[in-house]
């Protein structure tokens, strides 16, 4: 099949960007979306033009490196799918497809479809861990974790840090990302000693990094490739309330 691509081209964070239009021919149904872009890039380079920069690594939906908007929807709109997992069999001959990078003040564009997501690392630094210096851990089965707690923790820990939640949110909030880590660690017995400090620290970091706040649109959940539910934001808010009460007057 043949496609028309409208792609955001921007040479660097400082340079102005604009859409450019390309035709790609010979796209097959068994290609992934990124393989279609590989084909475009091979053609562009053969013609002496700069290939489109986009981030990707594992190409199986787990590393979280890839991600951009396809026709305005983060990761292209198939439920539970990253861009790299998106198959071309969901497109048809003659389709026109628009690609643009995550749009958020906290995620400046580096080049074309690649953005800087380092604020996420800094949110983790503010409390997204359980302090357990190497060597000091007790025997693993001395810590009993109810299966339900382990399941909730896992559902939250499945976050791949791709940034789609931020890109989809009208407020460019990082609430789903932050709530996922807070829920993962706060659900576990091991996470209790640092529960309040973690919640307060991560929420503050999120605000300091210029992300917005949640106003319950639910767009984040809709585009999350790991189907992380928006309820976790509620859990985080409850934990925040709890932590704030515990630390009145600090």
């Amino acid at each position: 099949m043949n496609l028309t691509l409208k792609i955001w081209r921007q040479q660097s964070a400082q340079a102005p960007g604009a859409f450019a239009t390309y035709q790609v021919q010979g796209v097959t149904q068994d290609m992934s979306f990124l393989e279609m872009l590989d084909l475009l890039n091979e053609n562009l380079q053969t013609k002496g033009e700069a290939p489109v920069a986009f981030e990707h690594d594992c190409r199986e939906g787990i590393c979280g490196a890839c991600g951009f908007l396809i026709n305005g929807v983060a990761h292209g709109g198939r439920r539970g799918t990253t861009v790299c997992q998106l198959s071309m069999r969901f497109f048809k001959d003659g389709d026109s497809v628009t690609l643009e990078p995550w749009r958020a003040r906290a995620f400046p564009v580096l080049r074309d479809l690649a953005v800087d997501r380092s604020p996420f690392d800094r949110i983790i630094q503010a409390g997204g861990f359980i302090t357990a210096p190497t060597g000091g851990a007790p025997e693993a089965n001395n810590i009993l974790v109810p299966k339900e707690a382990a399941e909730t923790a896992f559902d939250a820990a499945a976050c791949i840090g791709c940034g789609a939640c931020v890109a989809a949110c009208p407020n460019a909030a990082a609430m789903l990302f932050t709530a996922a880590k807070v829920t993962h660690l706060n659900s576990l017995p091991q996470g209790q000693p640092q529960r309040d400090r973690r919640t307060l620290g991560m929420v503050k970091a999120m605000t300091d990094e210029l992300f917005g706040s949640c106003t319950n649109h639910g767009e984040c959940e809709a585009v999350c490739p790991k189907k992380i539910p928006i309820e976790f934001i509620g859990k985080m808010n409850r934990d925040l309330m709890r932590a704030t009460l515990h630390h009145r007057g600090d």
Partner: protein
Amino acid sequence: MLESKVPSGPIEQKWEKARFDLKLVNPANRRKHSVIIVGSGLAGAAAAASLAQQGYRVDCFCFQDSPRRAHSIAAQGGINAAKNYRNDGDSIFRLFYDTVKGGDFRAREANVYRLAQISVNIIDQCVAQGVPFAREYGGLLDTRSFGGVQVSRTFYARGQTGQQLLLGAYQALEEQVAAGGVTMHSRAEMLDLVLVNGKARGIITRNLVTGAIESYAADVVVLATGGYGNVFYLSTNAKGSNATAIWRAHRRGAFFGNPCFTQIHPTCIPVSSEHQSKLTLMSESLRNDGRVWVPKKKGDTRSPAAIAENERDYYLERRYPSFGNLVPRDVASRAAKEVCDEARGVGPGGQGVYLDFADAIRRLGEPQVREKYGNLFDMYEEITGENAYQVPMRIYPAVHYTMGGLWVDYDLMSTIPGLFVAGEANFSDHGANRLGASALMQGLADGYFILPYTLPNYIASTPLEKVDTSHPAFAATKQEVAERVARMVNVRGKRTVDSFHKELGKMIWENCGMARSEAGLKSNLAKIPALREEFWNNVNIIGTGEEFNQSLEKAGRVADFLELGELMCLDALQRRESCGGHFRVESQTPEGEALRDDEHFSYVSAWEWKGEGGQWELHTEPLAFEYVHLAQRSYK
């Protein structure tokens, strides 16, 4: 010349003895010492966090935008540990035994024993960090069985164990970043190693956003940069996984161990077209409940449902009745290749076999199968458009892991003093074939529990003159790196980087993949230098070195693969025996199984770089087996 530094004494006591003999650094002095760690996967992040906790100043580098993206994240199945929680006969000795045997007797016994000992601490450490392992209803840890063994010792977190273990290590790393113990350098690719007076004292990196070539100095350098499976172009590795760091170190004097030992994983989604950019692994855990089969008849293109039970060949169960579908990876892969070579393969091009869950669904019910493997079935459907609850999956072997890597001694130090190598990047523990769920174990053992002992010993026992980046060695190496980048950019030829990579990958896959012959390897050794020559005269990289330039990044990695690929073939050619994943067609039993030649090849090959144009010198480290008796591996 190759001094493995294995401690004396009974194998059970070697590591304990070593830990007592290794010298310590006073806590007050640790801040004075600096460590560079390249790579932020399981081994790198674990080492960075652990060494920073001890008080060393750590600089950690990764080429990705965040350390959380390291390819360890993609490991699905699980992590082995000799906890014996199942009361099913497991022990440290059995894990050691299984790993040495599974590696087809080409690993160093003392290293493997230490790995088995440490395995139990790893689970404790990861649970304390909050890794959400699968649990029983009573709250205890759950385990499952995995290929190549007969006990249930694999701990797992659904099908995303690598992700969860990596996030545990990443979070520990970020905690140390916040505490000031680690300085993280993301989007920084190591392009060379700097030696001062014969010791590793720093690295040269390229900033992947601005293109700036930068120098970093330290007392010790650790490479934890993963494997080199992407030599094959198509593999299950992430697209960015590369050999540049270890290859640059090899060219500076680090010997390369067993380069031809690569693992072809039996359960991957088959190749569908020429445009395919990578292969997707389906966890080996699927073989616990899936049955592998092909039609008995050649060229049978009927749909699987139309093929009656008595017309199917469950070839693994037939050939290996005691292990059945759970034979080790090398055996399962080779068996799949054989049935496809006999024209009994299924799917487009006949390069595939069925992995059928119909029996498991009948026995356990679909909900239980979904609970165990749901995410894998979803992933399969997303890629192939087929529902594996209704039709059997199609699978085919794909390159997955490299057992070879930089040669290291018992302390994980390479032949360059002060250069340590951890995780998949070293050659150490898996011999000629890695058992499932052992890679995560090894990466974390190296990072959490071995380097934090052996690296301080080096610092404490070595006179380290004060060196910073103003030393002339840094300027000289930096200059070489800058010239190489400029030379590559200025070729301005006609072929894209990927076209070279694909051509190399095909050659290596055909002649240095699942079956290797003298003629095939010699043909590769003639062709690879010519391809390399063409690369340097005809590659086309758009843009400059002073910008965000993904083609340039790829080009540097492919240039190194073009050298490493040659060494792999050279190594495969000299090893005129079959062992583990290395199958020389000239060396097989009458039943077609791999035939080792212990008399001549019971050694680690360690190659020394001797200059441009395919010049290497082979050194060998003889392997002795005192605890696991050499035997022809049998899974029948």
